[in-house]
């Protein structure tokens, strides 16, 4: 579990110290994409903890969710509908669901371990 966290920090550092930047016009779609990506990663963490992790599903989910969310927000803007709201809502709810599940699993595992130690 350590390696992904290191990678996350490394990616953050790369983003921080290189001068990559997004055009201001694309920034709103990018934020929706980012939310989708975050959701995918949390889903991946959950799947790992549940031992149902499949890296193909995970990787494709990460990219397709991010791209689709961005494209949907863009389309919504063109149509004059705040479609990004739907994306934010859907991914936001799932994000919290995933977080809650991750917490439960970790707590369950920890208490299981404690019980095993006692017995």
């Amino acid at each position: 579990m350590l390696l992904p966290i290191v990678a996350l920090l490394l990616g953050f550092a790369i983003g921080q110290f290189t001068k990559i930047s997004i055009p201001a016009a694309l920034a709103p779609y990018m934020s929706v994409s980012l939310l989708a990506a975050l959701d995918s990663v949390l889903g991946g963490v959950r799947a790992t903890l549940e031992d149902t992790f499949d890296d193909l599903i995970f990787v494709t989910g990460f990219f397709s969710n991010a791209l689709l969310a961005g494209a949907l927000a863009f389309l919504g803007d063109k149509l004059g509908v705040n479609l990004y709201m739907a994306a934010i809502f859907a991914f936001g709810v799932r994000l919290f669901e995933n977080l809650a599940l991750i917490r439960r699993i970790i707590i369950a595992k920890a208490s299981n371990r404690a019980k095993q130690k006692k017995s």
Partner: protein
Amino acid sequence: MIVKNRTQLTLSFVALLLGLLIAVQLRSSTDVYSAMPDLRVTEMRAVLMETITQNQSLTNEVEEVRDKLRQYEELAMKGEGALELIQKELGNARMLAGLVDVQGPGLVVTLTDSQAASMPGDNPNVYLVHDEDLLKLVNVLSAAGAEAISINDQRLLATSEIHCAGPTISINNVRVGAPFVIKAIGNSETLESAVKMRDGIMETLNFYGIGVQVKREANLVVPAFKRPIRFDYAQPVTGGK
């Protein structure tokens, strides 16, 4: 173990990407927010520059006035030549008052009544040049920096009226009729663009079918006010300010 490693690697790869995205997005959104004060800065800069230029020109003016004062003082000490300077001042004042013919580059605007056949039921008034049209035009020219203006050779003074007088228009108590030739001395380009401004006086007049010819002249003569100037009521205030 191999499967576990692969999982770790994919997760790491995606996490790397995510971190990158977060960092870039963070910077981009701070860019967006910081763009607002930038706008304000540009605005303030323009104001500052304007103030600086104004200050500069005022400083120059102060120097000019001081220079003049020194000249006066010197001449007064010598007791001669003061007359010459005063005459020059008087010349300027007379030019401003419209008491002398003046010449220079400028613009000639000719207004003619509409040639369009009036439709039955139309108000024929809208096809004629009115005092208000002339007033507006003169106002536009003055705003564009015209230094001397005449309408059909009637020099416009501070006291000139442009007033409806039946089928004619009374200017300086002289009745003039169409076509109206308005001469204005000033920067001819500025004057022309002021008249031809989009949605400006020329478009408005053209809309009513009134003919507007605009011609820039390198040298035109605006005649002096030819009638006596009388002040029956106004008296200069003497003493104090």
